[in-house]
């Protein structure tokens, strides 16, 4: 079992210490993904997002598409990934990211239960917006699985409180208009949306999509409670393996801790 403690209490505790959350994303089933998850945990990840590969990942750019494709070609399935997660010994909460058909096809109840059995404490479903989320959220709530809701820069003001009210664990503040992938600079939308969310909710707000390096992570965390880093992690996993990812996560962790050392230190 991988999860230690629930997601939201952990993020809130970190926040009250004055520190920032770092959530790396790793595509489940891709080459050396288990070792990569362990490397993330060992080098300062607050929680880890594990992607369940899907044939049609519409929110993902080229890097994560490639990792998903590799995972599928190697025969990865939700079941095989859950199986490996169950035996994974890391001391940080695991959240899965999956497209909705994976959930719908398995059945809401069954999928929620399989997450719990695998020691997963939360789920991010990028193509399941608020209006369609009811049946899944009910099942997830029943099983104690936190459903992370996404908020996007295009949301009008009256939509954000409704998203935040439904979010468990944290609100995923989408950093830019676009799909996952590394960018030269942090988009202005990353901090403006995070600020809009922080103004209306007490639920932790993490910025993801387009947070590409340590400096951008610090920049986003000036406003948000932390960051999610996907393509930057997955690219290093594909190019350099778990070690390269470990170094990267350690660098980002250090940069965040330097700028936000926390009350106790």
């Amino acid at each position, binding site marked *: 079992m991988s999860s230690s403690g629930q997601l939201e209490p952990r993020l809130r505790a970190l926040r009250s210490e004055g520190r920032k959350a770092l959530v790396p994303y790793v595509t489940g089933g891709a080459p050396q993904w288990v070792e990569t998850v362990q490397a993330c945990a060992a080098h300062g990840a607050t929680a880890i997002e594990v992607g369940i590969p899907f044939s049609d990942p519409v929110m993902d750019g080229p890097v994560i598409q490639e990792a998903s494709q590799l995972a*599928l070609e190697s025969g990865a399935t939700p079941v095989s990934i859950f199986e490996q997660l169950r035996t994974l010994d890391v001391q940080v909460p695991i959240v899965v990211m999956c497209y*909705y058909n994976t959930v*719908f096809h398995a059945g809401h109840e069954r999928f929620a239960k399989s997450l719990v059995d695998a020691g997963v404490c939360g789920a991010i479903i990028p193509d399941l917006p608020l209006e369609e989320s009811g049946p899944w959220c009910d099942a997830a709530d029943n099983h104690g699985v936190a459903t992370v809701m996404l908020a*996007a820069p295009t*949301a009008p003001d009256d*939509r954000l409180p409704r*998203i935040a009210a439904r979010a468990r664990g944290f609100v995923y503040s989408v950093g830019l*208009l676009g799909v996952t992938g590394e960018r030269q600079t942090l988009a202005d939308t990353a901090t403006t949306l995070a600020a809009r969310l922080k103004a209306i909710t007490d639920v932790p707000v993490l910025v993801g999509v387009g947070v590409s390096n340590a400096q951008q992570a610090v920049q986003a965390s000036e406003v948000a409670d932390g960051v999610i880093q996907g393509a930057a992690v997955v690219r290093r996993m594909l190019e350099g393996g778990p070690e390269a990812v470990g170094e990267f996560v350690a660098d980002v962790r250090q940069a965040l801790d330097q700028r936000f050392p926390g009350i106790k230190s």
Partner: protein
Amino acid sequence: MLVTPGADGRFGDFGGRFVPETLVPACQELEREFSAAWSDESFRSELSRVLAEYAGRPSIITECENLGRQLGIRLVLKREDLNHTGSHKINNVLGQALLAKRMGKRRIVAETGAGQHGVASATAAALMGLECKVYMGAVDVERQALNVFRMRLLGAEVEAVHSGSRTLKDAVNEAMRDWVASVESTHYCLGSVMGPHPYPYMVRQFHRVIGDEAREQMRHRYDHDPDIVVACVGGGSNAMGIFSGFVDTDARLIGVEPAGGAAVGRGQPGVVHGMKSYLMQDEYGQVQEAHSISAGLDYPGVGPEHSYLASIGRAEYPTVTDDEVIAAFQLMARSEGIIPALECAHALAWIVRESNTFTGKTVLMNLSGRGDKDVAQMMDILGNSI
């Protein structure tokens, strides 16, 4: 009996709006704008004007006397192949391009399989001064090279999509990814009765003109409705267009799917491309690749209204094989002097196979496109055998 979906975008259990959060406001805006435009007399009359003066509507109906005699039925074609750009796709793109302008968008993106919707989109964009980018699977770019050149000639940018199965479904993914990034300036001109609400409803409304015209033409010429209405189904826009005119009649409605892309026939309910509908998928919900001789039907899903019509038993969705299609393609050319699009040859293939079960009946078939685009491919397949 024709469904008007409510705010949840449902046709029975099917439809909905399963899109990234970034696109939800855009879909909601589109829903509002379409609804306002559709009840706005000036929008409707401008659309009717371009359909008549630019696209060449109304399209005629043609009775196939030779084939009819041969098959022992009365076979009538709705001639969408005679529209400008050579298929029914123009009905929808002219509507959406007018709507895009009304919404102040200056750019459209589109996906295309066979290239018909891409060509139609590029055409409407040229006419209305919009920038246009078309995503097309790399496999389709190769087998429909002529349409790629046509689109470029019309000023559109065509991007080959190399991800996944490199066909229509991947072109849809890539168009959606573009839209996620460009939503403020761009309208996604979706080419079939699929995708997130309001697309399945809106695209059907833009294609209703096919069924509405055909119903009047049939009553005028034959004094009765057809016994059977047949169309091919990939995403299902031409079929929904013609079915719309006959859902509330006694006519049997037949949507013919390719054997290798039978979403209704072989699929299970699933969610992809923003909609809940029948979908070809594996035991874990991974979307499977469709395989068909016709690029336009190479789609593992189907529009949600078709899933609904199938679920209530109002329409039937049989399949035909590539071999039956190749035979039907040649049959229509030789018997009637009409070269059909390979997509429509699916509808004819079913009629030929089943005609002895409805001898003497009146069959209306939607000839949704002309076959010029398929001639090179058929030349490869048939070689000197003809």
